[in-house]
């Protein structure tokens, strides 16, 4: 299993680990049975993601993609965060082994799941904006 230096860096020194007590949106994706769960917390002010934190149960790639995803959306607009693709996360990490690509999909979906929760809390139907959240296949 070959992990890039960047993956190992984000695994050993994950950015933005933790919880946000008064988060404006919280999303969770995955299940313990298949070995990956990501929980994402967002603080949003005037359409800008001012803070993002995560907790992850999973392999090295799951931790690294969560960490990178929070880095990529912090300080950005909701529109930008909705455009975040798993491919962008993979590229930012200098690649992932083929069997770990699903981790980057989880990270992408964790962000969308948190944004979906944000809209729901605002009394706005998230579906037309965020779309369906894809749970991993068992």
């Amino acid at each position: 299993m070959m992990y890039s230096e960047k993956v190992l860096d984000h695994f050993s020194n994950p950015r933005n680990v933790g919880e946000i007590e008064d988060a404006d949106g919280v999303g969770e994706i995955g299940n313990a049975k298949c070995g990956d769960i990501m929980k994402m917390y967002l603080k949003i002010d005037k359409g800008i993601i001012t803070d993002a934190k995560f907790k992850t149960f999973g392999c090295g790639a799951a931790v690294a993609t969560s960490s990178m995803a929070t880095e990529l959306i912090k300080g950005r607009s909701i529109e930008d965060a909705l455009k975040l693709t798993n491919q962008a996360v993979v590229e930012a990490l200098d690649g992932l082994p083929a069997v770990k690509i699903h981790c980057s999909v989880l990270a992408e979906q964790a962000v969308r799941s948190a944004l979906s929760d944000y809209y729901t809390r605002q009394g706005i139907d998230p579906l037309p904006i965020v779309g369906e959240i894809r749970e991993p296949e068992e």
Partner: protein
Amino acid sequence: MEKRFIYADNAATTPVSEEVLAAMLPHFRTAYGNPSSIYKLGRDAQRDIETAREKVAKALGAEPAEIFFTSCGSESDNWALKGTAERLAKKGKKHIITSVFEHHAILHTCEYLEKQGYEVTYVPVSDKGIVDPEDIRKAIREDTALVSIMYANNEIGTIQPIEEIAAICHEKGVLFHTDAVQAVGHVEIDVKKQGIDMLSLSGHKIHAQKGIGVLYVKKGIVLPNLIHGGGQERAKRAGTENVPAIVGLGVAIEAATRNIAEKAAVITPRRNRLIDGLLTIPYTRLNGDRDRRLPGNLNISFEGIEGESLLLMLDMNGICASSGSACTSGSLDPSHVLLSIGLKHEVAHGSLRLSIEEDVSDEDIDYILETVPKVVERLRAMSPVWEKMMKGEKYE
């Protein structure tokens, strides 16, 4: 404590010993003859192979003519199963019995045979990781060709009741094979006394090089030729012999079986200290029977964390170990061995296997006992599963 380097994954592979390397080296540059050649250089190589064969036979309580060199344990397993299946199918025997927690070299071969029209019964194992010989007795049918049960499990190290199973097989007139890849050099094996008809072993688990294995086949059992070609290995497995590897294996198995009890007396207390120390971490369990296991093996599950992360963090702390998590098995499912003893998926994901030998000192044990709890704590602190557990919520 200062950072150390500790190799605690001897069930995965072992380094070639000085003694083995010294025996192998002449066979690369000076004693390089083809064993099939008539001149002295060739005859010498042939003699060295036969010396190695005698050493392997002696270590197993077998005759040299019953020892066949192969390229690895998996090849030996494949040959024993497919070979027996092919031979006995002609007598109408198309049923094989094995256990659910065998190595994939056995399980995937059985799946292949099922596709070829054979029937396979997979007997269960207890929650302690032991096969019940009575389950074997019940599974044996008129058309059973072979029973294959591993000597010791590769993940949880549990030692199986080989003699009892062999006795039942013989009573019923069924052949008995055992994959002893993890057991050789760690427990006393005597194929004659124990009634073993076929046995697979691998060199690199006992300080020989990778790429050499053995299949012991009891005299009187005839397997089909595995590789057709020249007359090597009594024409059963053609191809010019890997002389350095064979010579090395001879030396390795002699050394590994020389002082089994003495080695165990050193390793077992250290291993037990590791078990007791690691079990003080909350929400932790030992996998496999505590006593009926290989001296250097321990397998522990830490709830709320995932195994690959654990291994990566231990690696950063200089500790080489192994896990049964899905991420390390290359699939979405965690180890079939851990599932077979009743672990839930999420608990199986957080398992750690350490397999130590005498070179892991008491100070190394101290270091492991200091490092693992810190790493577990760190991973649990970032785990949403652990968070829920602590809040008393269930994860399904």
